């Protein structure tokens, strides 16, 4: 088990390294200019050249890469070329917003998706058909559109929840909950449908396995078999779906943030992109990819806990 976790962690780190390195060279080699980005269109060539020298952009690219990587490994992501603040500072204030949204959406999706998936598998007919409709709608309606409608109904018309802004959890837990409720609902609808559908299908598949029939032949109640044997065997594909949904939620959060005027890493990345602020973009990427690696690792561990073939070798 320890060897398994070490192996998965190693694979995750390799993945993060490859992505970050690839993106660094992509940004450098396709000719974006942080100096011009920082100074704007109206700065003179001389000013830009001076700034370029200051930012160390005239050094060989490998040297710049090594510089960034060695600092990043020590937790130093450099300075934003446009805003003159340390990248890490930007991320520390903005990341909690996005992570709250993505993790919240995935947790909601895991709970409600499992519930609906099991209900659909065990209640064929109307409920199951209903889920199919919701599934299509959940996929077809863009989540930012759903977010706008939610804001319209619950914030503007009913005034139950705030339409914009974010309150730090430590400042006011209730305020935090109020500000992220609507964004999380908007972000989770598609994931709920996806997880419910996946679990429904795998529960039905597992329920048709020979061993379920054999367990029933021993006098075990169908419900008991469903909640122990069937769910445990049906869970792995749903777990994989869950980790894909987390990645999708990190992506979707960037758009949802705009609807609710939340200052998350979506807006950081968009601003940085407009300024060719490579240091900030690299910081956002690094953190996001590490988060994805972490979530994948958690899913792998859960997978191993459920599946003895992975655990017991």
């Amino acid at each position, binding site marked *: 088990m320890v060897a398994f976790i070490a192996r998965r962690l190693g694979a995750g780190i390799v993945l993060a390294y490859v992505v970050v390195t690839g993106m660094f060279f992509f940004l450098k080699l396709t000719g974006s200019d942080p100096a011009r980005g920082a100074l704007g269109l109206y700065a003179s060539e001389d000013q830009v050249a001076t700034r370029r020298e200051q930012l160390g952009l005239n050094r060989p690219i490998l040297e710049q890469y090594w510089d960034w990587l060695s600092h990043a490994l020590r937790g130093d992501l450099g300075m934003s070329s446009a805003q003159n603040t340390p990248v890490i500072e930007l991320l520390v204030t903005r990341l909690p917003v996005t992570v709250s949204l993505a993790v919240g959406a995935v947790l909601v999706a895991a709970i409600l998706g499992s519930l609906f998936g099991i209900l659909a598998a065990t209640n064929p007919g109307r409920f199951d058909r209903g889920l199919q409709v919701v599934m299509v709608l959940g*996929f*077809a309606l863009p989540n930012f559109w759903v977010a706008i409608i939610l804001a319209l109904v619950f914030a503007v018309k009913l005034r139950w929840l705030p339409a914009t802004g974010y309150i730090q959890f430590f400042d006011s837990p209730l305020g935090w909950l109020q500000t992220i409720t609507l964004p999380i609902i908007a972000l989770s609808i598609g994931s709920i449908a996806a997880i419910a559908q996946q679990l429904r299908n795998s529960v039905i598949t597992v329920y048709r396995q020979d061993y379920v029939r054999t367990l029933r032949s021993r*006098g075990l109640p169908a419900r008991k078999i*469903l909640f122990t044997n069937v769910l445990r065997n049906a869970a792995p594909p749903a777990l994989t779906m869950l980790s894909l949904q987390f990645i999708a939620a990190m992506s979707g959060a960037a758009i949802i943030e705009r609807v609710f005027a939340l200052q998350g890493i979506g807006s950081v990345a968009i601003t940085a992109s407009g300024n*060719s602020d490579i240091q900030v973009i690299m910081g956002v990427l690094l953190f996001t990819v590490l988060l994805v690696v972490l979530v994948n690792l958690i899913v792998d561990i859960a997978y191993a806990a459920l599946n003895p073939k992975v655990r017991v070798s």
Partner: protein
Amino acid sequence: MTEFATATVRVNRPARGLRRFLRNPLGIGAAVVLLTIVIAAVFAPFLAPYDPNLIVLTQALQPPSPEHWLGTDASGRDVLSRILWGGQVSLQAGVIMIATAVVVGVPTGLVAGFFAKWFDGVASWVSNLLMSLPEILIVIVVITTLGSGLAPTMITIGILASPDLFRLTRSVVIGVREELYIDAARVSGLGNARIIFRHVLSVVAGPLLVRASFVFGLAIIAQSGLEFLGFGNPERPSWGGMLSEAFATFFRAPELVFAPGAAIGLTVMSLVIFGAAIADAIGSDNAVATRGTRATVSGSATVIERAESDESTVAETSDSGADDALLRVENLRVSYPVSSDKGVVADRAVVDGVSLHVNRGEILGLVGESGSGKSQTSFAILGLLPPEAMVSASAVSLAGDSLLGSTEAQLQKLRGVRMAYVPQEPLSNLDPSFTVASQLVTPMRYALGISRAEATERARALLARVGIPDTKRTMASYPHQLSGGMAQRVLIAGAVSCDPDLLIADEPTTALDVTVQAEVLNLLRELQRERNMAMILVTHNFGVVADICDRVAVMQAGHVVEQQPVRDLFASPQHDYTKMLLASTLEGAAPRGPLVAGEGS
């Protein structure tokens, strides 16, 4: 060669698939909507009543009217015209993304699936990497240097979506590669490239079309999301851009978000339903079902209904001497609904008019070819048929208690304790995720109401009884750590763990090595004698019948054609089918001395 090729492509019969598609109203509806959207977008220059960018500030925020069917936006531009033109951007985005995903994903999937080796490893790794990337962030990185044009953004998203098509193609190809006909084609001298083209591509095309319609939907949503974030061409009307503008005037005119949202939703929904309808038509697996599915899970009581006509359809071989039998079955019928090609649901019987009985301490052999209804008969008695099965009988009783109309809860109380079951395939009948101990102990605790400690002790004793040497280790093992013979012993221990009166063993030795077969058969006979159980032994092997059965019922095509004590059956088979079976069994096989083998009875 051409004859060969056409004869072997099984998945794809376009004509038949098209017919099935045309019978699905939802699919046709989606296709019509999609076609309308495409026509509206392509002919927007002729159809749109206004220039989509014509700003008339005096006409701003007009409600729907005969002049402006969908009203005007904050700049006084006609919403309907902008919706029509906006379709062009969405369709272009979809086409670019699909083309990229297909160009990247399909050839790599073909190569990875067909040639495997190192390429498969590398491609699969890259595919996993791409799937771990959050789409919007990567697109933002690309936009930083390549700009926010439709081509760079949608190509990026297409690459990120390509693992979907890569994995699909690869798995289909691997499936096809295993098929014999590819080998045959290879032997007959076709080059590799031609093999791929002829066989694999034709098989992959259908599922690919299904996935592509989903990917198209993803493209439209992703593109509108980027427009909403402000990455787009403000001079070209687009649905995402309209949403973005509507959001800016959200407090003044919230209704402006509806038209573009509906356009996106309707288009993507149609794509999803269209894809699902194709999946149904070609009979491939799919996430969304557009036709009814009969899959169920819980409360799947296959209640045995009282047969409507008790006397008229009495089986030809009436079952005499069944008065004090432990199990008595009269006129059992099992049927399944069949949806024919015309969509009419018929009812096909797999067991019809079966009557049999088993006395206490007796072994009844249930013999017949595969498909003759032996297993279906067994599961009908146990109440373990799938929910779509329809079961009826004139009488089914166990130790005098009628099982007709018993609910799942009532049957569940009988299973394990009164009647038990030994399956055919040992390994697929053990839950791979639980230890042997758990699979033996839990049922005992439920069926017998005993403590965990007591059940564990009992399980260990049972394992020792069925001839497992290291019971402690076996108890802690998972099924994948057991051999087939071991697993079957575990299953037999489980079946007898609650002292059933009746044991139904469905081909208990068929899946085992020849050396283990005799041991397992002996074990079953010993257990049966020791506990004075009645047993139904389902088999197609007359050697097994001769070895341990007292009486034999021969089944053919859902009917019992002959029922006799074992000696009489071997000495004077009555029915032609029995004679034929006997002849085919004994011919060329080592003589097993059928008449002596029934020793002890």
